[in-house]
């Protein structure tokens, strides 16, 4: 019934290309703050959009009212005609296979099968564990969500895909305070294949509690340039910010100077550096069978042996650059058109053991866990959740307020060693680009060692 309506509406489109994406989702959110359950919400969404391409420019319309789909198609087409007839756009789509598929949910433990009571009870147990851990733990913050989404995608070339997705994230934060200083440390979990990642976090949570308490006695780091070792979690955020965004091809396709800078074959890092962005890592956030243009996701090599070998494409960026789509066109939800985005971004495993990495650093910083990061294409910053001074090749005292910054073009080349202990970290956070935030993504890496990293800090 719906399928017929969609196909009939698309058949009436009078543009070069037209697509319809309809989404239905159900979301549960639970949050704790201190001893009390702060909120417990359920939200249901039904919405859709039509995107139309005419003579190189787009018309896009999104809506909640599904009652008149043919009219929505006409509206998007009308908008595309207004933009297209000005002959100012150069958008074109790379070819993509016509797909007919029905992708059922693949989960180990469907979050919808876990009762609200059981979810609240488990999170409540974690909350109590933190509050009882130490008298300095003055408060807590837990944010949990799970979401089921069904997406129907059809385009005027004949693709018709119905895809079910699951997404889940959980951040559990211990907050310590001594009256004048407040510190915190978060334990994270998340995934795309079920609730089973949420139980059994007790050990990790206790460790976070200890760090939050210890940070109360830590001094702020002294600003300056250091050799740093990043743990897998923070190194994942580093590669996401310091390189991942630069590989999103929609920022390159129309910029001749960027194209030169990002010529495939250019050296970006040392021989030991290999970077991938993958939509096929089972269970991680950001993974799906198809992207939001109906293109199959894949594992895309970005840097191999230090050389730039690939980038993340939508059909549009691939069409403009004469390359192939990579299944990287993703939209936050039905209110947005898809753009080039990361999925699971990681540095591939290297050879060096942690002991060999730290050996020989007279004065440096070991930065662990991520508090967030940002890039503007040229420079990046990211903040560590905990950090230690390295003195004479050994981990020394804990320091706080460690924010690292660098220039994309030089910092990757300053990577000196890559560890043999790759790990992918999911969390309840997400990636932002323009207004489309938070999009589920995952990052990871082995431990890495970088020289000459600028760390901020007051004297």
């Amino acid at each position, binding site marked *: 019934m719906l399928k017929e309506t969609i196909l009939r509406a698309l058949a009436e489109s009078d543009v070069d290309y037209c697509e319809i994406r309809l989404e239905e989702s159900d979301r549960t959110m639970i949050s704790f703050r201190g001893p009390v359950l702060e909120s417990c919400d359920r939200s249901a969404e039904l919405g859709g959009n039509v995107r139309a391409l005419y003579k190189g420019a787009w*018309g896009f319309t999104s809506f909640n009212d599904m009652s008149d789909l043919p009219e929505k198609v006409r509206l998007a087409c009308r908008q595309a005609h207004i*933009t297209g007839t000005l002959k100012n756009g*150069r*958008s074109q789509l790379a070819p993509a296979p016509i797909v007919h598929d029905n992708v059922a949910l693949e989960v180990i433990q469907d979050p919808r099968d876990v009762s609200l009571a059981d979810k609240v009870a488990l999170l409540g147990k974690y909350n109590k564990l933190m509050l009882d851990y130490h008298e300095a733990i*003055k408060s807590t913050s837990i944010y949990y969500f799970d979401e089921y989404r069904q997406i129907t995608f059809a385009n005027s070339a004949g693709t018709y895909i119905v895809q079910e997705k699951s997404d889940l994230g959980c951040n559990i934060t211990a907050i310590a305070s001594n009256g004048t200083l*407040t510190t915190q440390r978060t334990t994270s979990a998340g995934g795309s294949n079920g609730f089973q990642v949420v139980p059994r976090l007790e050990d990790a949570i206790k460790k976070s509690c200890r760090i939050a308490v210890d940070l109360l006695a830590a001094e702020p780091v002294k600003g300056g340039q250091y050799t740093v070792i990043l743990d897998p979690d923070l190194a994942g955020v580093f590669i996401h910010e310091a390189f991942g965004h630069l590989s999103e091809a929609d920022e390159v396709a*129309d910029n001749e100077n960027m194209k030169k*800078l990002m010529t495939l074959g250019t050296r970006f890092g040392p021989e030991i550096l290999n970077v991938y962005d993958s939509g096929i890592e089972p269970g991680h956030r950001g993974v799906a069978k198809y992207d939001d243009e109906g293109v199959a996701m894949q594992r895309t090599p970005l840097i191999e042996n230090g050389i730039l070998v690939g980038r993340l494409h939508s059909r549009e960026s691939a069409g403009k650059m004469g390359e192939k789509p990579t299944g990287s066109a993703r939209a936050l939800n039905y209110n947005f058109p898809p753009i080039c985005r990361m999925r699971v971004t990681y540095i591939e495993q290297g050879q060096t053991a942690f002991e060999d990495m730290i050996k020989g650093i007279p004065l440096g910083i070991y930065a662990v866990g991520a508090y967030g990061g940002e890039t503007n294409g040229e*420079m990046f910053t990211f903040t560590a959740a905990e950090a230690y001074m390295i003195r004479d090749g050994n981990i020394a005292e804990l320091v706080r307020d460690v924010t690292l910054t660098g220039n994309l073009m030089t910092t990757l080349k300053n990577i000196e060693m890559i560890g043999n202990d790759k790990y992918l970290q999911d969390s309840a956070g997400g990636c932002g680009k323009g207004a489309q935030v938070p999009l589920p993504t995952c990052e990871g890496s082995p431990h890495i060692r970088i020289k000459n990293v600028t760390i901020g800090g007051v004297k």
Partner: protein
Amino acid sequence: MERLIEKAAQRGCTAEVFSSSAVENTVEVNDNQLKNLKSTDTHDTILRVIRNGKIGLASSSRPNDGDNLLKNAMDTSEFGTEAAFTFPEPAKLPQPEIYDPTLESLSIEELVHIATSLAAELQKEDPHILAFTQVSRVYSEYHLANTSGFDASFKKTLFAVVAAVNLTEGSNMLSIYDFRLGTHRDFGLAALIERVLTDFRIARRNVALAAGEYPVIMSPEAMGNLLRPIIACLDGRAVVKGISPWKDRLGEKMFDETFSLYDDGTIARSISSGYFDSEGVPMQRTALVENGVIRNYLLNLQTAAQLKMAPTGNGSREGGNSPIPGTTTLTAPAGQTSIDDMIKGIKQGILVDQLMGAWAGNPYTGAINGNIALGYKIENGRRVGRVKDCMFSINAFEGFKSQFLGCSKELVKTPNAVLPYFLFDKVNISG
């Protein structure tokens, strides 16, 4: 909406229904090309109930989804937090000027024309630059009704114009943007272009800067980063939990007496203004810091009741469905000096226009560390070029106590603030 409230009341609840709808048209010019013409038509209904003293909440964007909403709200109320408050009764509401009926007469073709002609103007500067422009018009409507008899609505418009230029030369990337943003149509577009191109001409030249301590002027946009720790500590939730260092410290002088900060949901033509917040509390002007003294917290119904204080009209549903304390428009009084004179008075210093990554980190320590994404070196009273690859560090609490030197007489509208430029002394720059 009335039926949903009635039904909830029949089930033994007190209840509130908050609905919002928005119709938006946006034109985007990217990389010199007219890229996209977007329209969105969205609506959302949120039902909050209090049953047996506990809060339940559900939202839906499906039309006529009342039964489902009620079921989900009842379900979640089983586990909900204890409500410390009752839903507010009807009150006299402020009516700031936030609706521009003339925006309706603006055709889609005119929006396209504004975006493309702005881009064309920017491109005249240099054949190598890429121009980005965006023009948006939004109509939104908010309606709130509850079992205490509150039933009110208001309409709001938004008109936003963004203009930006990008230039990549070798591995040097420069991006300059500025915007006009308000509830009313703004005709100051020539000034917008002038500002973007003036900044572009100066920032095109990179200049070296030695690490050290400098006087720094913070742009109104970059100031958002410095105010973040203060807002976090004034957030009613942090006060209730006891993690705010300013719990029980209202009335104490914490900062230099020239520093004042207000939250004002009643400023005419500001996009964050309204008649009432998302819980039916009238919008108001709240002194947060006045002459260096902490005056008020940011409170929604729940945190106000927990602290036995009056709500401040800061119940916000940004980023979720449950109302939490959130700012409306942050504002600070203008100073005496013009921004030009402020620059002229600096022998060696920096004007920070954009910080990057400064939002990350623990707000309760006051530590701000951000990469200077766009900053200008000031030499002998003139901006001489762009500084980059360096980090700005300040402790916001210390900064407003001992490093704050004053504000510009110009006030600038940003998406959630109306602020002057701020001048600080001895700010640490590493790089």
